């Protein structure tokens, strides 16, 4: 080796050291891993949630003057509790399969070294991805999976902000009882659900709650998600002709059921859809005119001008080019904001500190972007202040019809359809 090369190398090494030292002066960003279905059958929901989280991160990193009046973290300049560290979102695609979700969780933890994880939309995938986080002792915040058993596993690193099946079942039950009192027929109720984690668990919770409340479920139809054809199911329904029909379905099946019901010309007096596919913006955009009067649930209620949901909705609308926040994207965004708040209070990125901060979370209703009463976790990691409203499809948009305190519109029944 010549002296020349040796000198160059030494200079290079010195520059490199300087570079590293220089980098350390500015706070390194905090990495948050986000696992969503960015491809596969629920990709629309995943991609909208991704944009909602990006809006959330932009607000914390760069600030928003209006939001800053209400939310302490919206002043810009990153997380003050972490010396102004910015938030960096690392997205991973769960491809709609539990195996991919698990692999991505492992990759985000071991290779991207994320401080915490958010995800994973489908209950069945949250189940596997959060198990990886638990094993590695990394906090996992879930914003939208509702299967009951997720918080029954005794996990110490799992936190869920969304209302769960029991909350929805109660909302539907009291809605139906109100309708019954108003003289509508609710004698026979059919429950149609897909048979993965989400559909099975929500269906059984609804069935239990309805049995307690004296509502009669007369027909239960389970089907495999992503069917190629749903005509036989609709014909079964048509034959029994129940007064109330409840769907628990993802997007592809929601589309097929809607089209097939119109083809076979059958509709019930009251039709309820448990969110998911029937809330997918792609579904609403193309098929809203065929499900006029459909009853649904939502965590998103636009609220008064200048409120947190209203301001975030304006930012989100700009980001997506005209789409409003919806139930899924708003719950994802809420989960992110809860995690950001915890990171800020943790004062460091050590997993145990974040875990302790999440446990101490106590956010009030006025800080909420989703329609919850606040966020506070119980011992199992479930948000005890989560709530949801009952909505109805009116001319291409879901409006709030129950509970009375939050309703903006009166319910119009029977179900009109097309």
């Amino acid at each position, binding site marked *: 080796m010549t002296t020349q090369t040796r000198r160059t190398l030494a200079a290079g090494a010195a520059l490199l050291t300087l570079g590293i030292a220089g980098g350390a002066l500015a706070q390194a960003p905090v990495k948050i891993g986000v696992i969503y279905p960015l*491809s596969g059958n629920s990709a*629309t929901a995943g991609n909208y949630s991704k944009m909602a989280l990006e809006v959330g991160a932009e607000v914390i990193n760069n600030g928003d003057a209006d939001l800053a009046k209400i939310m302490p973290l919206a002043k810009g300049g990153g997380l003050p509790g972490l010396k102004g560290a910015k938030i960096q979102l690392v997205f991973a695609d769960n491809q709609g399969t539990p195996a991919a979700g698990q692999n991505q969780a492992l990759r985000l933890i071991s290779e991207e070294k994320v401080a915490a994880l958010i995800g994973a939309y489908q209950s069945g995938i949250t189940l596997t991805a959060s198990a990886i986080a638990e094993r590695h002792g990394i906090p996992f915040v879930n914003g939208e999976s509702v299967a009951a058993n997720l918080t029954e596993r005794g996990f110490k690193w799992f936190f869920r902000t969304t209302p769960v099946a029991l909350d929805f079942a109660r909302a539907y039950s009291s809605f139906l009882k109100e309708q019954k009192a108003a003289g509508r027929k609710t004698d026979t109720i059919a429950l149609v659900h897909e048979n993965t984690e989400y559909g099975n668990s929500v269906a059984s919770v609804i069935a239990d709650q309805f049995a307690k409340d004296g509502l009669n479920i007369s027909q239960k139809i*389970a*089907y495999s998600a992503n069917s190629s054809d749903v005509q*036989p199911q609709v014909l079964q329904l*048509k034959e029994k002709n129940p007064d109330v029909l409840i769907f628990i379905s993802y*997007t592809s099946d929601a589309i*097929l059921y809607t089209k097939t019901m*119109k083809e076979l*010309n059958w509709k019930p007096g009251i039709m309820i859809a448990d969110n998911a596919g029937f809330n997918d913006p792609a579904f609403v955009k193309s098929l809203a005119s065929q499900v006029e009067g459909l009853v649904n649930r939502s965590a998103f209620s636009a609220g008064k001008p200048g409120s947190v949901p209203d301001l975030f909705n304006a930012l989100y609308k700009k980001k997506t080019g005209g789409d409003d926040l919806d139930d899924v994207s708003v719950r994802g965004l809420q989960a992110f904001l809860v995690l950001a708040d915890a990171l800020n209070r943790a004062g460091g990125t050590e997993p145990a500190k974040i875990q302790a901060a999440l446990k101490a979370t106590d956010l009030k209703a006025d800080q909420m972007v989703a329609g919850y009463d606040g966020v506070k976790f119980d011992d199992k990691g479930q948000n005890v202040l989560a709530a949801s409203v009952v909505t109805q499809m009116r001319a291409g948009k879901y409006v709030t019809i129950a509970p009375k305190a939050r309703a903006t519109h009166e319910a119009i029944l029977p179900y009109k359809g097309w």
Partner: protein
Amino acid sequence: MSSTLVQVIVSGLLLGAVYALFSSGLTLIWGMMNVVNFAHGDFVMLGMYSAVMVWTALGGGPFAAVPIAAMMIGTLGVASYFLLVRHIMKGPMLAQILGTFGLALFLRYAAFWYFGANFKTLPDTIVGGSFELMGIRFEGSRVLAGVMGLAVTLALHLILTRTAVGSRMLAVSEDATAAQLMGIRPQRMQALAWCMAGAATGIAGALIANFFYTSPTVGETLAILAFVTVSFGGFGSVLGALVAGLIIGVVESLSAYLVGPVYKDVIVYILFVLVLWFRPQGLMGKA
């Protein structure tokens, strides 16, 4: 028989005709050149997107979409043959499988990139909604797809068995060297087979798009059915695919209605295994 049961059977037959329609391209390529096209489902998917594009860009219904999709996917078939299949046919069987499988992934992720992951649906006013005949409901778009399914599979069958071009194609499939000695150009015939298969698949996609949702992964849902239909009916037999498609459609509908939708696949696949057990070459395949 209750009218609902008749409705179930009619729905099953129409569904089966559609299965036959999107399987005929797969069986044609197998029959011609012993190549299994694993990208078949994604050809269907692109046929569906052609229809969506014809509707969104030109405002045209299925009568414009069908020929355009046939041309586009037919061209894709020829391109796949000359750029990929012709070369991998020289390699071992595994190379053929992985080659078309790679093509499938390429097409699927190209669709993700270009069309995005969002679900698309065509407005259903295009083919005039549904009508009732003797208490049985028929939906315009499904009847159109079913009738076209029968017509296209029968046309493919007649071309292969009753025309000079068909004879030449069959000659190439039986012995390419001997056919060449007779003055037939094997590559030209094989490219023609890919073109016809692609066109039939494009037509299938354009018609299915009228009552199904379109997304980049829709090919996966449909491809499994196509493979089952083709091996059930006998690899290489267009008529076999038709019969198998109708049987599968009716069995699927009846079992979903009578037993329950979660069991329908189990019943269809048990039937499928039984057929292969007693007739490994499929219903109408050559032993």
